[in-house]
C-alpha cells in the first residue's frame, strides 16, 4: 500500500462527534464549512483483488472529499459496497457506503450499518435500487423490504436514539452522515421537490442527484427547492459524468433506468472527431454551470469505468477553486 492511500484518515473507534456535527465525515465537515464539495463514484471490480479497488480509488482520492462505493448499481453483481468501504477506510479514504433496498431485508441492513460504522465508515447513501430486471441476473428475488425513506428513518433512529427498529438498544450507536439520492430530471417533475422534502423529513442530511445533463430542467427544480427552503435544510450535490460517445449515451438512455440525456447533448457528441474529449468538455461545462446555481453545495462525478479522467475534470472545472493545493515534488 503506498502512502497515497493514507491522505484522509478518519478515526476508527469511538470518538465523540464535535458539536453541530453528526459524524466524523470529512464530507460533512466540508459541506458544513460552506465549501463546494466534490464526491466521486468508484466502479466496483469484478474480482476479489483489493489492489483493483486501490487502483480505482487513487485518481478519485486526489480530488474527492468522499468516494462512493456503489451497491450493485443497475442490479449488476460486483464486489459489495461494504467490502469496498472496508478496504477504503483501511487505506485512509473516506467512503460513502451506498445501501440499496433491493437485495437485503431490514435485518441484514441494520446489521450492516453497524458493521460499516465499526469499520470507520461515516457516510451512508440510502437508495431504493434499480429493479432486478435490468441487471445481469433478472431471475433474482427483489427484496425491497425498506424503501429509501424508511431506510433513512431507520438509520436515523439507530444513530440518534440508539435503538434498532424493534426497540432493542444499541450500546454504541453508529455515527453516520445520512444521504439520499434524488433524480430531478425525470417524471413526475412537479412532485420531485415534494419527494425531496419527504426525504429530508425522513432524515436526509445531504443529497446526491442522478446525472444532470439538462441544466434548464435542473434549474427549475432548484428554484422550487429554494422556494420551499429545502436548500437550507439539506446539502445538494449534483451528479455529473463524462459521456464516452454518442452511442454510449444512447445506450445508457434506453437501458439504464432514470437517465435523461437531452438530444442536443448527443448531437454535439456526434459532430466531433474525438467524442471522449468532447464528453469531458461537456462535463466540465456542466460543473461550471451547476456551481453557479444557488443552493447547490457540490458535485458528484460518476465516470463509468473512467476514474482516471475524474481528477482532470474537477481541476479544469475549477470546482475546487479557493481551496489551496500544495504539491511539493
Amino acid at each position, binding site marked *: 500500500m503506498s502512502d497515497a492511500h493514507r491522505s484522509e484518515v478518519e478515526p476508527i473507534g469511538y470518538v465523540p462527534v464535535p458539536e453541530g456535527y453528526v459524524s466524523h465525515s470529512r464530507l460533512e465537515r466540508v459541506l458544513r464549512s460552506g465549501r463546494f464539495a466534490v464526491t466521486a463514484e468508484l466502479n466496483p471490480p469484478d474480482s476479489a483483488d483489493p489492489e483493483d479497488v486501490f487502483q480505482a480509488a487513487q485518481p478519485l482520492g486526489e480530488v474527492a472529499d468522499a468516494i462512493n462505493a456503489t451497491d450493485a448499481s443497475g442490479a449488476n453483481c460486483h464486489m459489495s459496497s461494504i467490502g469496498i468501504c472496508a478496504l477504503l477506510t483501511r487505506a485512509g479514504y473516506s467512503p460513502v457506503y451506498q445501501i440499496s*433496498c*433491493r437485495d437485503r431485508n*431490514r435485518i441484514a441492513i441494520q446489521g450492516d450499518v453497524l458493521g460499516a460504522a465499526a469499520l470507520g465508515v461515516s457516510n451512508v447513501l440510502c*437508495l*431504493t*435500487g*434499480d*429493479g432486478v*430486471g435490468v441487471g445481469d441476473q433478472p431471475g433474482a428475488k*427483489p427484496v*425491497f*423490504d*425498506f*424503501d*429509501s*425513506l*424508511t431506510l433513512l*428513518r*431507520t438509520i436515523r433512529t439507530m444513530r440518534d436514539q440508539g435503538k434498532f427498529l424493534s426497540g432493542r438498544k444499541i450500546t454504541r450507536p453508529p455515527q453516520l452522515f445520512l444521504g439520499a*439520492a*434524488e*433524480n430531478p430530471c*425525470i*417524471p*413526475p417533475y*412537479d*412532485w420531485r421537490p*415534494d*419527494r425531496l*422534502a*419527504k426525504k429530508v*423529513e*425522513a432524515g436526509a442530511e445531504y443529497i446526491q442527484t*442522478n446525472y444532470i445533463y439538462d441544466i434548464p430542467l435542473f434549474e427549475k427544480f432548484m428554484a422550487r427547492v429554494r422556494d420551499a427552503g429545502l436548500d437550507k435544510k439539506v446539502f445538494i450535490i449534483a451528479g455529473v459524468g463524462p459521456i464516452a460517445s454518442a452511442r454510449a449515451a444512447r445506450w445508457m438512455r434506453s437501458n439504464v*433506468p*432514470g437517465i435523461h440525456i437531452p438530444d442536443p447533448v448527443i448531437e454535439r457528441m456526434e459532430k466531433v472527431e474525438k467524442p471522449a474529449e468532447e464528453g469531458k468538455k461537456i462535463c466540465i461545462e456542466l460543473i461550471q454551470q451547476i456551481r453557479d446555481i444557488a443552493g447547490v453545495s457540490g458535485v458528484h462525478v460518476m465516470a463509468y469505468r473512467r476514474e482516471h479522467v475524474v481528477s482532470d475534470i474537477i481541476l479544469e472545472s475549477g470546482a475546487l477553486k479557493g481551496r489551496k493545493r500544495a504539491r511539493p515534488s
Partner: protein
Amino acid sequence: MYRLRLFAIRHARTFEWIYKYVERGMVAMDPLFAKIGYNRVERPIALVEKGVKTLLFDCKMCGQCVLSSTGMSCPMNCPKQLRNGPCGGVRPGEFCEVKPDMKCVWALAWDGASRMRHGGDKIKEVLPPVEHTLKGSSSWLRVSREIAAQERDAMDAARETLAQAFPEARENEPSAAPLAAEPPNAVNQELKK
C-alpha cells in the same frame, strides 16, 4: 382491474368522502363488534374488504391500508412496493421502470392526492415499512377499532374522578349513574350562566 384503478385515482376526492363515512359507520359498530368478538368478525369483514378493494384498487391485502395517504393509488402495486414516493427510474410519460406498460403507481398517487381534500398533506408524511405479519388481515377493522378505542379513552379521560371511581356502574346503569361530563343540555347550560 387496471382501468378501475385509474378511475379511482381520478375520483380520489369522492373515494376520500366515501371512505370517511364507511369509517364512521364501522366505528359506530364498535360495541356490536366487541360483543360478537373482533376475532369472529375478522374473517367475514376481511373477505368483503378484499372483494371491494381488489376490484377498485387492485388491493393486495397488505393489512395496513394507506390509500388515503397515497391518493387512492395502492402502493403494493408498485413492483418495488415503495411506501413513500416514486423511485428514480420512472420512464418518460410517467410509466413504470419495471413494468413499462403500467403508469407509475406513485406518479398516479401524487396526482390522486392533489385531488383530495387532505391527501395533499397526508402524502407528505413518511410511512413505516410494511409489517409482513399483518398480511391478509382487515385494515378497515383495525382502523375502526383503534379509532373507537381512542374515542373511548378520550371520553374516559374527560370524566370526573367520581366517575372513574365507579367504572362498573357506568356499564350496568348508565343513566342512573351521574358519572360522565354531561353533554351540553338545557339544564347545565343554564347553570353555567
